[in-house]
């Protein structure tokens, strides 16, 4: 069923610009870009048991880096911006992982959650107070992204660029969580201590996933900064980090596709509610989120995906005949 959902979303995603006008394509691009940090959070919480309230730290830092490279160094080439900002996300996340995860004793979930939250909060306050970063107003008027002589402006081209980035990241995440590495993550999620007694250096696995998740946010932050044309402190905030958490809880934890469904449904419903109930739409949205998170622990995806499928299979299964021969021999 997960594969069916993935194929359906891919078809819709590819066909969307053909059926939408410019306004909706811009909105759809924002939604696609938000899927990246949501995926990163799903990798952390859904697959590795790491609670992070600081994904916006990596997203916003990369966004600010992209804005500064464009404003102060005149760099707008996608071939510079994307690798540089992804690297910023990776390095910053590795530094945090070093501090939060690789200590002498295994950290608690609460410690990591509070550590990441503090990081996002501190970065938000720093950006608001630092004149060089534009203070409360952030950095406006970022020039468009370029690829050689071509300008990548908002619209269908940027949409497909964002969709391409999402597809690549999604595919990499899918390979990762279904490999033997993913099997170890599934084991860690269920019984971390038991896994360490099998010889696995659990915190190393967590640090690797945390670092990768930071890199994904870095990529998303850079693309978002150039798409929106400005960056502001909210890009680094705890509020946005919490939003990434809600996307995944709403869509379905530990499925990857749930993160995408969560972002798309929350953003679309928010837009509809804001349009129809201009004064109290946040209350309606909050009630909806509460309802799903409290009464549908497996999220929207849990309506159609079984628990067994959610845990998935890892690596290529040996050929059926081979299994049967082995059983027979036993």
């Amino acid at each position, binding site marked *: 069923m997960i594969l069916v959902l993935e194929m359906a979303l891919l078809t819709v995603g590819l066909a969307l610009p053909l059926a939408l006008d410019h306004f909706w394509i811009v909105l759809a691009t924002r939604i696609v870009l938000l899927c990246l940090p949501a995926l990163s959070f799903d990798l952390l919480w859904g697959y590795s048991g790491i609670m992070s309230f600081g994904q916006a730290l990596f997203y916003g830092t990369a966004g600010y880096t992209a804005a500064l490279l464009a404003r102060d160094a005149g760099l707008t080439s996608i071939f510079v911006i994307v690798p540089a900002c992804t690297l910023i996300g990776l390095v910053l996340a590795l530094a945090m992982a070093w501090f939060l995860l690789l200590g002498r004793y295994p950290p608690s979930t609460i410690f990591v959650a509070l550590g990441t939250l503090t990081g996002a909060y501190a970065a938000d306050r720093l950006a608001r107070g630092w004149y060089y970063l534009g203070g409360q107003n952030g950095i406006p008027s970022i020039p468009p992204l370029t690829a050689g002589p071509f300008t990548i402006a908002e619209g269908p081209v940027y949409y497909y660029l964002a969709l391409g980035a999402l597809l690549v990241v999604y595919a990499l995440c899918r390979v990762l969580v279904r*490999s033997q590495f993913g099997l170890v993550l599934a084991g860690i999620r269920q019984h971390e201590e038991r896994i360490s007694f099998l010889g696995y250096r659990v915190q190393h696995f967590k640090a690797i996933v945390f670092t990768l998740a930071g890199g994904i946010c870095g990529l998303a932050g850079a693309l978002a900064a150039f798409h929106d044309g400005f960056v502001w402190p909210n890009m680094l905030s705890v509020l946005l980090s919490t939003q990434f958490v809600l996307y995944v809880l709403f869509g379905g934890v530990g499925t990857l596709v749930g993160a995408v469904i969560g972002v798309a449904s929350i953003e679309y419903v928010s837009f509809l509610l804001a349009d129809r109930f201009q004064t109290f739409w946040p209350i309606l949205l909050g009630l909806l989120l509460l309802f799903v998170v409290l009464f549908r622990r497996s999220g929207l995806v849990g309506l159609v995906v079984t628990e067994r499928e959610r845990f998935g299979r*890892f690596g290529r299964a040996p050929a059926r005949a081979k299994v049967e021969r082995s059983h027979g021999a036993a």
Partner: protein
Amino acid sequence: MALLEVSGVSKRFGELRALAGVDLRVEAGQIHGLIGPNGSGKSTLMKCIAGALAPDAGVIRFAGRNLTRAAPSERARAGLSIKFQITSVLPSLSVYDNVLLALQGRDSLVSLLRSATRRARHEAVTAALARFPLIGRADQLAGALSHGEQQWLEIAMALATEPTLLLLDEPTAGMSLEERRLTGELLAPIKTGCAILIVEHDLDFIRGVSDVLTVLDQGTVLDSGSVEAIQASSKVQEVYLTRV
């Protein structure tokens, strides 16, 4: 030199003295039974050896290496493996995946990222499952197994790491008589590959499988020796056997 040398290990939990200067030696290829009344410190000693608890004092040497402060993963990589008192299989993974996880515990990260690892380990997984009566249940979730089968699965996982010392904390707890008999038969041939340190309340079972017995009482070693010597020990009979 003994495979495992525990020297003067002590552990307190607040006012409670769980271990007080325990010495223990386990030789290679030996099944060493650890017995004692409830609260005598058997499980605490096992946890200190495996790395689940850090001793307050004393030294734990394994295969000549001082592992007193080593992380559990480092002890496992050195050749120590444990089956806990409370079964701790991974219930939402298949029986096959539980054993596979144990088998590839010392693999490099790069090989884990390559899906081919599963195929490469297939023969070893089926061999590990075939040793215990679990081969027909390879595709079932571990959580769906009976208690006795989960105990076997956990022993199979502990053995799959190819340890030189296997720590078994009450391997037959909650098993039927038939399952206990079968477990004894399954453990006997293992000692050709590795030594076993085993904690068990079932005295008939532990007498049947052990080469050497150590008796703990109130966190100290009461006596240690061959099964016959311990059975004949007046100290043990007076302090331990009469209380059980």
